[in-house]
């Protein structure tokens, strides 16, 4: 691998962008310590009150939990279904193949608002109450193209001889899949899962139309924008969530390096 010294420009660009990405987060962090309920300078003094109130605020924590549950469930389903279609796309020939692939990728082409509205119509007309399930279903549909494309681009480079060798040695296809194919495409599946999780966790456009009694965190946040005195608590939670994920990431990286 080339180690030419142009990299300083590229890495500079990367870190500059990271700084830009984290700038609003830094500002949010500042405001979570702000003694005022309004989001403007000058700050009115530092306080940890909002974090305290957050821990007492069952609704906010529940909304965060809901988002985690929906993201976990929908990303799992999307990765599963996406991998299935990817395998079909690369390994099989059948008449409706192009139709299936087109169908799986089509959600990419449908703007979220159209899909959200359409699913709203479906559930309302059938008198199916909106819930975390309906949100999760929508998230799975929109994440499916991403998981499909990510797994497919990995599968496409996969040597079919490995499969045939395994089957020549007596393995049936499910076993071949499990022991040969899956381990090799596992990193792509993880990447797909991560993407699907990301798509779902903070997703708002669809969730707004499809959430029921239990809101996801973005939906809850948006609804709370009505009430000024609740906002800092939301910010405190957002900051905590971010610190939490950052910590997890650092730990995961340490573990990975140690292996």
């Amino acid at each position, binding site marked *: 691998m080339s180690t030419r010294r142009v990299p300083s420009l590229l890495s500079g660009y990367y870190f500059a962008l990271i700084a830009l990405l984290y700038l609003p987060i830094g500002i*949010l962090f500042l405001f979570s310590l702000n003694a005022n309920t309004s989001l403007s300078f000058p700050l009115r003094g530092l306080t940890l009150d909002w974090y305290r109130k957050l821990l007492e605020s069952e609704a906010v924590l529940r909304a965060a939990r809901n988002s985690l549950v929906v993201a976990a469930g929908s990303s799992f389903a999307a990765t599963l279904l996406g991998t*299935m279609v990817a395998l079909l796309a690369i*390994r099989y020939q059948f008449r409706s193949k192009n139709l299936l692939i087109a169908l799986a990728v089509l959600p990419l082409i449908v*703007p979220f608002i159209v899909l959200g509205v359409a699913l709203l119509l479906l559930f309302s007309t059938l008198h199916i109450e909106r819930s975390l399930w309906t949100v999760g279903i929508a998230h799975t549909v929109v994440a499916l193209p991403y998981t499909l494309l990510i797994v497919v*681009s990995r599968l496409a480079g996969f040597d079919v001889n490995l499969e045939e060798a395994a089957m020549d040695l007596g393995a*049936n296809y499910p076993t071949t899949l499990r022991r040969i194919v899956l381990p090799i495409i596992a990193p792509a599946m993880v990447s797909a899962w991560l993407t699907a999780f990301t798509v779902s966790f903070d997703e708002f456009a669809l969730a707004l139309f499809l959430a029921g009694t239990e809101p996801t965190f*973005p939906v809850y946040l948006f609804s709370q924008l009505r009430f000024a005195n609740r906002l800092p608590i939301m910010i405190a939670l957002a900051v905590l969530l*971010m610190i939490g994920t950052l910590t997890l990431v650092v730990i995961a990286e340490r573990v990975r390096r140690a292996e």
Partner: protein
Amino acid sequence: MLDRRSTFWILYLPPLLWLGAFFLAPLGLMAAFSFRADMRGDLLQIWTPTLAQYASVWATGSYVRLLGISALVALAVAVSATALAYPIAYFLAFRAGKRAGLYLVLLLVPFWTSYLLRVMAWKIMLGSEGVLNSFLLYLQLIDNPLTALLYNRNAVMLTLVYVWIPFAALPILAALQRIDLALFEAAADLGATPFRRFWRVTFPLSLPGVLAAFFMVFIPTVGEYVTPLLVGGSRGSLYGNIIQDFFTKAANWPLGSALSMIMLVGTLALVAVAVRLVDLRKLIE
């Protein structure tokens, strides 16, 4: 014996049923609703189809015009985000080395902070008494706060580009990672400069990823409605806002459905044209 053929149904049915029930059926229902006269009566009923909603949309020229503007905005955002994301993906694929995984997640972690709040934070930064303005005023680079940064269409576009760059980097990264490094060595052996190597080898091979990134940003942005709500002001509304209003503020589902169908058909047509121009099969194979 469970050979490849019989495993077919296990792989085929679940995605098909899922997409049929939760993708095709809802869109079909929405199409049906677009031919409904009003909201009276039960939601589930057979109604006499009418073109009244479409006629209403056609008569209001501003809706269709707004759709065109939304498409142009989406185009600008998609091009910018993809272009700005490419160096990130390149850095992660070829320069980050062992730390690539960490850097990638570092890029994505802000997504686990609420998008709504991040946009609110941008408002704080760009507002007339915000960070940027107070900083510039302090340095006496400007006399009056800049008001052009917020509550207009430009603010919407800037915010969208900012939000999409990390996400656009992903498919480009995936495509770059697929490139066989032996090709680089071959290019070097043939005497190619780094720039030529990039232009003749790397970039063409990453093109499927670039196109994927472009469409991944373009399509959702056409129907974007959240960002205009937060930073668009009175004039920054996009087509998606009109649809949303008809569903949430007006409870006028037939008209909202008609507007949605028009956008859906328009988007599909656009993509069909684009697919003709760029053979998408290269993406799959």
